[in-house]
C-alpha cells in the first residue's frame, strides 16, 4: 500500500484500498477494538456510583497528565509546579460558581482561562531560565501559589474550603463521569490535531534544539509561550472538573506530593505519547482511589497492627508509585508508551509489528531537560 501523500485520502480516515477483503478484515478488527474501548469507558459509568466516582478521578488525572505532556513531553520543559496550575483552575471555577453564581460551563471556561493565564506567566519565566533551574523555579512557584493564592480568604470560604456545587442535572455520579469522559475525549482529539499541525512540529523542534527550530523559522519564544498556555488551559479545566467532582475547593489538596504524582504518572506513562500518558494517569488515579477500597489489598493491610494497616492503606499507593517510577526510569525509559506502541499503531491503521527504523518513544522524558 502506498504511503505517499495520496494515501492520506480526503479525511485521512479512509485509505484507498481499505475496502479490499484482507484490509477489510484488519479494519474490522480495528473497529471492534475501538468499539471495545468505548464500551469499557461507557461501562464504568454504568457500574454504580462508586465506580463512576473512580472514573471521574481517573478522567481528571488523565487531563492533568495530558496537560503536563504538552510542556514536558512535546516541548521538553520540566515543570514541577503543575499542581499549582490545576489548583488555580479549580480555585477560580469554584469561586465564580459559588460567589458569583455563574453556571457550570462558564465555570469550566473560567478554569481554563485562569489556568492558561498563570501558565503563561510561568512560561515567561521559562523563556529566560531553562533546564534544572526551570524545574526548581516551577517547584517553588507551585508551593508559593499553594501557600498564598489558595489561602486567600476570599477564595477559601473560611477554612473549610470553598464550595463548588454541581448543577442538579449533574449530581448523579455517573452523569458527571460522562461529562468528564467527554471532556477527555475532546481534549484527546484536539491534542491529536495539535501534534499533527505545524504547532506540534514546532514544539518537537524546540525540544530537539532551539537553534535548529529557529533556523527552520519557528518563533521559539512564541511557541514556548503557546505550549505553556495550552498546557495551562487543559490543567485549568482538569482543576475545574476536580472542584465540581468533590464539590469543594480545598487548597491543601494541591500540595508538593501532588506535583510529584503528576510528574510520576507522566513519566511512567511515557512523556510524549498521548496514549501512554493517559494510561499512566489512569494507573495512578486507580492506585490512589481504587486500591484503598480494593478487597485483597485491604486484607493484606489487615495483616498488620491496626495503625500500620491504616497507614498502608493511605500511603501504600505512594510507595508503589515511587517504586514504579524508579523501575520505569531504570528499565523502561519510554514508559508504558513503549508497551502500548504496537497497539496504538495498529489501532490507528498501521501494522502491529514495527517496520524498520520506526520511532520508539524511548526515553522522551529523558530528553526533556538540557543541562
Amino acid at each position, binding site marked *: 500500500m502506498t504511503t505517499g501523500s495520496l494515501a492520506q485520502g480526503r479525511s485521512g480516515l479512509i485509505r484507498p484500498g481499505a475496502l479490499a477483503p484482507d484490509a477489510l478484515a484488519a479494519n474490522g478488527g480495528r473497529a471492534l477494538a475501538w468499539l471495545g474501548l468505548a464500551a469499557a469507558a461507557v461501562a464504568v459509568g454504568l457500574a454504580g456510583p462508586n465506580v463512576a466516582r473512580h472514573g471521574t478521578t481517573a478522567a481528571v488525572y488523565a487531563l492533568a497528565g495530558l496537560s503536563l505532556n504538552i510542556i514536558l513531553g512535546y516541548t521538553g520543559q*520540566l515543570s*514541577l509546579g503543575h499542581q499549582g496550575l490545576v489548583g488555580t483552575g479549580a480555585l477560580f471555577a469554584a469561586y465564580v460558581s459559588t460567589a458569583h453564581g455563574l453556571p457550570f460551563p462558564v465555570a469550566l471556561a473560567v478554569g481554563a482561562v485562569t489556568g492558561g493565564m498563570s501558565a503563561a506567566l510561568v512560561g515567561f*519565566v521559562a523563556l*529566560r*531560565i531553562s*533546564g*534544572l*533551574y526551570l*524545574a*526548581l*523555579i516551577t*517547584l*517553588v*512557584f507551585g*508551593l*508559593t501559589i*499553594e*501557600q*498564598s*493564592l489558595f*489561602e*486567600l*480568604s476570599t477564595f477559601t470560604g473560611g477554612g473549610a474550603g470553598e464550595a463548588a456545587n454541581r448543577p442538579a442535572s449533574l449530581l448523579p455520579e455517573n452523569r458527571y463521569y460522562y461529562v468528564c469522559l467527554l471532556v477527555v475525549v475532546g481534549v484527546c482529539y484536539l491534542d491529536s490535531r495539535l501534534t499533527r499541525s505545524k504547532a506540534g512540529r514546532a514544539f518537537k523542534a524546540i525540544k530537539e534544539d532551539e537553534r535548529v527550530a529557529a533556523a527552520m523559522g519557528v518563533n521559539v519564544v512564541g511557541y514556548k509561550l503557546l505550549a505553556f498556555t495550552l498546557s495551562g488551559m487543559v490543567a485549568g479545566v482538569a482543576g475545574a472538573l476536580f472542584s465540581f467532582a468533590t464539590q469543594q475547593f480545598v487548597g*491543601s489538596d494541591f*500540595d*508538593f*506530593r501532588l506535583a*510529584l504524582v503528576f*510528574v*510520576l504518572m507522566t*513519566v511512567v506513562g511515557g512523556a510524549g505519547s498521548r496514549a501512554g500518558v493517559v494510561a499512566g494517569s489512569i494507573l495512578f488515579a486507580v492506585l490512589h482511589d481504587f486500591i484503598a477500597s480494593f478487597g485483597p489489598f485491604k486484607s493484606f493491610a489487615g495483616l498488620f497492627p491496626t*495503625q*500500620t494497616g*491504616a*497507614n*498502608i492503606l*493511605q*500511603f*501504600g499507593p*505512594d*510507595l508503589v*508509585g*515511587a*517504586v514504579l*517510577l*524508579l523501575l520505569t*526510569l*531504570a528499565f523502561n*525509559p519510554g514508559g508504558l508508551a513503549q508497551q502500548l506502541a504496537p497497539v496504538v499503531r495498529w489501532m490507528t491503521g498501521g501494522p502491529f509489528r514495527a517496520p524498520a527504523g520506526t520511532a520508539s518513544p524511548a*526515553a522522551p*522524558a*529523558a*530528553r*526533556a*531537560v538540557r*543541562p
Partner: protein
Amino acid sequence: MHAVMASVGGSIGVPIANGLVNGCLWGLLAIGIVLIYKANGIFNFAQGEFGSMAALIAVSAVDGLGPFPKLPLPVAMVLGLIAGTACGLLTERLVIRPLFRAPRATLLVATAGVALFFASIQALCTGTDLSHVFPALGGHSRFALFGSVNSPDAYVFGWTQITRVLVLVAVAALAVVFFRTRYGLGILAVSQDPVAANTVGINVNRISMLTWSLAGLLGAAAGLIDVPGGPYQPGLVSGILTGVGPLVFAFIGAVLGGMTSLPGAFVGSLALGLIDSFGGRYMPTSVPGGDALVIFGTLLVVLLFRPTGLLGRET
C-alpha cells in the same frame, strides 16, 4: 538606654538572629545539595528525605517505637546519623549508579522518586500520628538576646538554636579541612572530570559512594537539628506531606550563593535567612503565604538577573 537597646533589638536584632539561625539549618542542607550538584550535575530532591529518615530513626529510638528499645538522646542521634548516611549510600548504589549514563532529566526525576519513596516509607511507619515529639535539645533552658527571657522584644532561644549554629560552623570548618585531604580532593576531581580522575588512578566508583554517603550524612545532620522541639512528621524536611519544609529554602539558598560554590551554599543560605526574616516582617499580614512570596521573588530575581549567584563562577 536599655529601652532603646531593647527596641533596636526587637526590630533589627531579633530578625537578624532568627534569620541567621534558620540560615544555619538551611545551609547544612544546602551544602549537601551543592555537593551533589558539583558531583553529578543534578539537583538532589531527596536531600531532605535523608534528614527525615534520620529524624524517624532518632525519634523511634527516643520513644522506643518499632524494633527500638528506649534509648538515650545522644545514642538516638547517632543512630539517626547512621540511618541518613545509609540512605544516601543506598540511593547511590541502587538509583544513581545504574542510571549514571542517563540524561540529567532522568536523574532529576529519579531523585524526586527517591524522595517520595522515603517519605512513603516514613508515612507507613507513623502515618498521621503527631504524638512523637522530639525533645528540645538541652532541656528547657532558655536564653535571650536584646533583653530578658520574658521581654517581648528579645530574641529567645535554647540549645536547639545554639546547636544549629554550632553544627554549621563545625561542618564549615570540617569542610575546609576535608577538601584538602585525599578523599576531598578526589571528590572535587571526579566532579570536574571523571574520566581524567579515573586515568589518574582515582577510584571513581568509591568516590561516588563517598560523595553520596557524605550527602546523606549532611542531610541527616540537618534533619536531626530540624526536628527537636516539634513533632516528627513524615517528610518533614522536604515538606512533601507537611507543606513547606527547610529543603525548599536550602535550594534557594544554594542558588543564591551560586550552585558551584560550597562556601556559597552557606553564605547564600544565611543571606536568605536574613531576607526571609526581614521580608516576612514587612509583608502585610493580610497577604497569606508572604514568606513563600518573598523567597519565590528572591529566587526569581537571582535566576533572572544574576544566575551565578553571589559567589558562583561561570562553569
